[in-house]
């Protein structure tokens, strides 16, 4: 069954101006996103992985319409939401919510947990005060918090509980899509497992769609249905979880998988060693953005940029080793 996409992003480019030099007069531009096309299907968990600075969080923020000044278009439930403002943007926010990484800095320390969770209902003026209070009880129950937790402050909670609070708040308005930006990265493993299970449970119960952003390949493998790999503001590979982890095609995906330490001393990963660091997104390399670190680069990789190509049904890769398709410049 092929369901219609819940959200579609087309040709997303995002630059951030930065000032450089002693007096901050030399202007430079960080090229954070360099042409992203992405579809999020209804009811799926789409994993988004990549190393720091690859633009995965920026993309999440753009899709949640928390950033302005980007090129390209975002469609949600068939409607263009790229330029929404005012009341229509508020309506969109009810449908798309965000859970952030650090539950220590994303919750207001001076508000009681009950008020934090109820705030979206208050802001959007949903229901009577009594109904909101009842909904608060439901939400807390849903994420595994006890009713008496509502009267406490965030600092009285552990990291795992705080992430439950963030999740309850995100769920308050019955969203269709939750953009999760590294939601378990700050948690210890034993707590991380509890929170990951909660994400799955809620998805099943409420029919949620997740965009799950993480640098942890094992976590993404566990939670996702499909996975997109980003490098320097572009998607380099996109496939079903199975295809991506069992038969990766892009040399970057292969290197990423090989570098991710397996918690089993008997399984040694094949060594795909990457030299050097990720290039500066201010001065992007020519041709394929990955070519300076790629152990398999060919001549064409230095001059032309490969297009994201569907090699097998649902398996997209951006690499001249697998397809000659050149990306058309926008």
């Amino acid at each position: 069954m092929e369901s219609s996409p819940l959200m579609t992003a087309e040709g997303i480019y995002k630059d951030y101006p930065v000032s450089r030099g002693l007096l901050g007069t030399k202007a430079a531009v960080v090229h954070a996103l360099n042409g992203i096309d992405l579809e999020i299907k209804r009811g799926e968990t789409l994993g988004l992985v990549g190393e720091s600075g690859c633009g995965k969080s920026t993309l999440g923020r753009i899709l949640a319409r928390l950033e302005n000044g980007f090129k390209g278009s975002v469609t949600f439930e068939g409607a263009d939401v790229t330029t929404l403002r005012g009341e229509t943007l508020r309506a969109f926010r009810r449908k798309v919510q965000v859970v952030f990484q650090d539950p220590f800095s994303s919750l207001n320390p001076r508000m009681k947990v009950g008020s934090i969770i109820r705030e979206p209902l208050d802001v959007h003026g949903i229901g009577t005060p009594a109904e909101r209070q009842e909904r608060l009880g439901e939400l807390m129950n849903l994420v595994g918090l006890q009713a008496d937790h509502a009267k406490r402050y965030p600092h009285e909670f552990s990291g795992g509980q705080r992430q439950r609070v963030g999740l309850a708040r995100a769920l308050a308005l019955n969203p269709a899509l939750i953009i999760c930006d590294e939601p378990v990265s700050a948690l210890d493993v034993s707590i991380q497992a509890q929170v990951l299970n909660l994400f799955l449970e809620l998805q099943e119960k409420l029919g949620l769609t997740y965009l799950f952003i993480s640098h942890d390949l094992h976590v993404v493998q566990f939670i996702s249905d499909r996975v997109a790999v980003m490098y320097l503001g572009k998607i380099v590979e996109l496939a079903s979880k199975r295809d991506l982890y069992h038969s990766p095609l892009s040399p970057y995906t292969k290197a990423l998988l090989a570098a991710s330490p397996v918690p089993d001393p008997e399984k040694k990963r094949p060594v795909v060693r990457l030299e050097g660091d990720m290039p500066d997104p201010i001065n992007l390399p020519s041709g394929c953005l990955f070519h300076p670190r790629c152990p398999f680069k060919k001549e064409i990789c230095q001059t032309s940029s490969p297009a994201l190509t569907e090699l097998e049904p649902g398996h997209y890769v951006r690499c001249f080793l697998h397809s000659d398709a050149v990306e058309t410049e926008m």
Partner: protein
Amino acid sequence: MQREKPLLKIDGLTVTFDTSEGVVHAVDDVSFEIDRGEIVGLVGESGCGKSVTALSILRLLPVPPARISGRSIRFKDRDLLQLSEDEMRTLRGRSISMVFQDPMTSLNPVFKIGFQIREMIQTHFPDMDKTAVEERAIELLRRVRIPSPESRMAAYPHQLSGGLRQRVMIAMALACDPELMIADEPTTALDVTIQAQILELVQELQNDLGMSVLLITHDLGIVAQTTQRIVVMYAGKVVERAETAAIFKSPCHPYTQGLLRSLPGRYVEIEGKRTLPSIPGMVPSLIELPRGCSFRDRCDQAFERCEQAMPPLMPCGEADHFVRCWRYAEKEH
């Protein structure tokens, strides 16, 4: 097999902190050994006492509020707990060096890399002449595979990437050919591809130089791939200690078992059901530890005896495999 005398032998280390809320029992009766030329992993979740253990070895904790007691921390023939502050100072960086998690806060931002490495060498070898110091500094940068080391000497820390900064920290830790390097979460701030490079470097250096490494991390993937032996800590105590292969193949402590099961990287999907086995509850407060075994509230195998007293470390299974769990005492009788 006759085992050589260990390089470092920690015996009954106990560290408490006096705080306004009460006495925090950060480390309680921790004992383990590090042999010459091996990499030992010290693992556990945040607050389990692994970093405090490391800092105690070098006596880097502020006393007070910290109070260190314990039978001994024997490094070769000396007991580090008995040394004077002067003796400790010559030992730090010279015989035992340390690499911290965040190289940005460990390097001085206003001095060039070259200056900081030269300072490290000159402190411990005051008689070395200037050109020799310079050569040694460049040689160290080359050894940790920093490209064009001569020109990097003139760089400030902010001009280097996180991976390169951590290489500089390792270079400084190697400056005096230490016998033991303590690395506290050395790759936690780094991306996986850079982490892989750094871990490979540590293994290679350990191999080439024959030094010992105490690798402190919360990441079980890292210890699986780099260490020979593992010490698992929970709520300030060593709960299990064994060879790396044994820990992963047949973990004895219910905590270690639960931890391994809860790793997404070890998860095997069963058709139609996707739940990660998790450990219920959370780590107890180190101020008011429950009576008996500190893991019993979260343990699915706890029984009466676990409430009565904290079990000692006892052998289980193969040689050199120790566990702090009453279930193994039962089996002996």
